[in-house]
């Protein structure tokens, strides 16, 4: 899955636990069914947190997680699809 297929992008760079998960939940609630949400975070804990959140949230499917370096900063990207 690439970024082009994500309907919405949530930028939570510069925010630490628990904000990425909480903001993800908020953005996911507004997402239409069938669409994918991209979450961009600088919190390394978000890999486990957002993965765990998607796993225990009905209608949320973790499509992909990626680590990248952008502008000398570690960035964690998550793709969550709304299935129902």
């Amino acid at each position, binding site marked *: 899955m690439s970024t082009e297929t994500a309907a919405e992008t949530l930028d939570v760079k*510069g*925010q*630490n*636990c*628990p*904000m990425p*998960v*909480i903001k*993800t*939940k*908020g953005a996911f609630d507004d997402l239409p069914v069938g669409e994918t949400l991209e979450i961009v975070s*600088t*919190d390394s804990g978000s890999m486990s947190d957002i993965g765990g*959140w998607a796993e*225990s*949230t*009905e209608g949320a499917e973790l499509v992909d997680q990626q680590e990248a370096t952008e502008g000398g900063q570690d960035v964690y990207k998550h793709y969550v699809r709304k299935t129902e």
Partner: protein
Amino acid sequence: MSTDTPASPPDDLDPEAVADLQARIEALETEVSDLQSEVDDSGSQKMVIIATKGTLDMAYPPLILASTAAAFGYDVTLFHTFWGLEILHEENSKNLQLSSVGNPNMPVPNAIAALPGMDRMTTRMMRNKIDDNDVASIEELIETSLASGVELQACQMTIDLLGYDEDDFYDGVTTGVGAASAFQDMVDADIQLLV
């Protein structure tokens, strides 16, 4: 072959016993459907945290867990009592302190930590660390919790005991609640924590 119940019972059965059985089946069916709707009604899971501490470090865990549990779809009640009230006190919450005395994790010996102004200094160090690490402020976590539907409660007995007024607390904080309502919430909850 059909497994449907025949419209009329065979002749060799006592009609009264059959009617009796049918009545019992109906009663059981009603009971099962009542129980089913009860299970459906209590669909979402619940967590209750009792927050009793009012230092900067102890203010974080209840708020972080509460807002996170809400993101997981939990109904969350955060019941604040004793020094936990400081977290909900709009003015005091911005001034929560870290105690340097009796805290072996602080980089100063107790004899020095007890000197005047030391708590203020260690608190300032901690606040700088909080800012540097992009950790949310207590105020931000309270607003996030309220926006996520977390029920923030302030124990009425300790509000009176500590001489606070209902208006001292953030908008959206529930006052006028006591141990009984906290207990009832705990009985219904899947997770209960005392912090």
